[in-house]
């Protein structure tokens, strides 16, 4: 991972040394006559390092676009800084990106706590916090208070609600045990799951938090099993989600498992299956707005063919089954769309204005029918998804697309 970003970072540093005077007269910092510099943090190391591939996918897409001439006649430089999933490091890195590197926008920064930690600052200095890689509801809900911040992925509130409603509809008197990350991300999912279950015979009987610094979640899974739960909801990042499956299996526990979208790439599921020996994984329910790289249905799909080609060319050695790459490309695609519309003198205010009025229905990496939309009173770019069930080594979609009320 480092190998890949280092030369780009070095190049970007060199480009930044060129005085801002080169920039077009009306353009904002980070824009020169040949480049637009954007930057963001990503957990390249640390407890959530599986998400490093999100930045890698986005990077590959920008490289692809740059090879075709870039956006708005400029190349897009995307500088990724490691924050190890530690908000304190995010704050330092983002201040450096803004104050020393003069990025045009902060983009695709990953993690709920990380983004909360920089939101006040970025809104104060009026630098776009574009397409936050977190599903916390606050990004869309509090857009009036934080006009420089916008999310991307379906909100955790919408996702939790979908799971709750699914359980309410398909299970009679289910007893749900929840493993959740002890922060706003986990709590958002837990609260909305509960509201999805309300007025049904099913309810949450136990909810066990974990800290990202803990070595394992064995004790929590033991307690959830002991609670008598017959449904297990995993609201955890990939490392801990994989552990949850391993421990459930070691306890001989076979609940119906709900696994949140952020840990449901085919790659993570395959790791959790322990080489096909872990049976607790079979029948897991999750949701995604993305096309599944393992689904044969997309084998000849132009979008997915392009995805594989871009990854093979610009992210050598990357595993195409890791759909986090795909997420990165989907968000980079929308960003390129925004930048193209900014004209000769891109401004930060112009970028945010366009981000608040997206109408993109043809993102090649998202499921057909899933559109990216924002507008007056709607600050949630993605509010659709597809329920899917893990069967015999891959996701099988079922039911139609769900669309959440644009709340």
């Amino acid at each position, binding site marked *: *991972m*480092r*190998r890949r970003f280092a030369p780009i970072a070095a190049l970007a540093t060199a480009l930044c040394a060129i005085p801002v005077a080169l920039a077009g007269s009306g353009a904002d910092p980070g824009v020169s006559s040949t480049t637009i510099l954007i930057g963001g943090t990503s*957990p*390249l*190391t*640390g*407890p959530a*390092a*599986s998400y*490093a*591939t999100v930045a890698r996918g986005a990077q590959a897409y920008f490289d692809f676009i740059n090879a075709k001439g870039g956006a708005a006649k400029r190349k897009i430089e995307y500088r990724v800084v490691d924050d190890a999933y530690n908000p304190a490091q995010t704050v330092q890195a983002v201040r450096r990106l803004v104050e020393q590197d003069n990025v045009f926008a902060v983009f695709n920064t990953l993690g709920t706590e990380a983004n909360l930690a920089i939101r006040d600052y970025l809104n104060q200095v009026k630098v776009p916090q574009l397409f936050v890689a977190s599903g916390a509801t606050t990004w869309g809900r509090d857009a009036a208070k934080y006009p420089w911040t916008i999310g991307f992925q379906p909100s955790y509130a919408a996702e939790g609600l979908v799971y709750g409603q699914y359980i309410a509809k398909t299970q009679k008197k289910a007893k749900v045990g929840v493993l959740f990350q*002890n922060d706003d991300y986990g709590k958002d999912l837990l609260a909305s799951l509960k509201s999805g279950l309300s007025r049904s015979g099913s309810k949450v009987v136990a909810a*066990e*938090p*974990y*800290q990202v*610094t*803990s*070595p*394992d979640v*064995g*004790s*929590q899974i*033991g*307690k959830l*099993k*002991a609670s008598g739960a017959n449904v297990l909801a995993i609201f955890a990042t*990939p*490392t801990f989600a*994989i*552990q949850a499956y*391993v421990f459930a*299996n*070691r*306890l*001989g*526990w076979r609940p119906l498992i709900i696994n949140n979208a952020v840990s449901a790439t085919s790659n*993570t599921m395959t*790791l*959790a299956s*322990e*080489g096909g*020996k*872990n049976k607790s994984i079979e029948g897991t329910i999750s949701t995604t707005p993305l096309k599944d790289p393992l689904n044969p249905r997309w084998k000849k799909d132009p979008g997915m063919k392009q995805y594989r080609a871009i990854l093979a060319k610009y992210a050598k050695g990357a595993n195409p089954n*890791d759909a986090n790459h795909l997420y990165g490309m989907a968000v980079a695609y929308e960003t390129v769309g925004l930048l193209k519309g900014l004209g000769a003198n891109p401004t930060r205010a112009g970028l945010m204005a366009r981000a608040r009025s997206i109408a993109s229905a043809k993102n090649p990496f998202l499921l057909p029918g899933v559109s990216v939309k924002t507008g007056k009173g709607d600050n949630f770019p993605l509010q659709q998804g597809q329920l899917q069930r893990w069967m015999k080594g891959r996701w099988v979609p079922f039911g139609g697309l769900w669309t959440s009320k644009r709340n």
Partner: protein
Amino acid sequence: MIVAAFSDFMQQVVSGLASGGIYALLALALVIIHRSTGVINFAQGEMATFSAYIAWTLTVNHGLSYWPAFVACLAISFGGGVGIHRVVIRPVERGSVLRIVIVTIGLLVGINGFVIWEWGGEPQQLRSPFGTETYDVGGVIVAAHDIGTIAVALGIVLLLWLLFRFTKVGLALRAVAVNPDEARLVGVRVTWMLALGWGLAATLGAVAGMLTAPTVGLDPQMMQAVLIYAFAAAVLGGIDSPIGAVVGGLLLGVLLNMLSYLSQYGAFDWFTEELRLPAALLIILVVLLVKPTGIFGRPEVKRV
């Protein structure tokens, strides 16, 4: 109802023993390096992670089956441990203990960086040599992997006891740790004994890494939290005692699980997940204040 509550309780004990087995294995490596070189090795966790990645890459990327990879990993780790001593530790060995400690902290950062650079930060899966079977013992589920882990820890204790008690090499190792200058005078090759201590610790660390990865998932940080618990286990059991490391590890695993189990029933209800790691640190502090030698350690005797 009471039967169910009892099996829940026992399940938490078993789960505590399982976590404890992991702490015990790494604690053993810490003990062995302290006993044979007198060093507290902060890089022990990262060395174990590195070894686990070696095993993983041999099986996944180089097509070896598990046991050849296991043996190769132990050999590579032993060589790596000796190499670390020769290249990094030996130049600072003559100075204060503090210098060596700082070098091991540097190693921690360096090895972690290398692992991420070479293999990336994403989690991987290393399979367990004991499989994924589980057994139902009166309503309490026990996993083959956890039994295997604890058995390996106890087996290592026995081997170490035989080594230190009955072999000349063991005696030389002990002599070097206690008094390198006098050991040299009686003809012990001190430098090689210290290198051997590092090699042994790295090998034990490799076992710890390979048995931890199937449980917590193989990623570059997998041993960082475990290391703190392993320190607590080693201090609790007595930093020089292999059996102490295992007992300390198991005790710690069960103790922490009990606190969080009982908190459900009102006792220790202040004990939340956030306090698990601080609790381990508190144990280190209390043991060092009250009984610095731990449960099995012997007080240091100096002839005046």
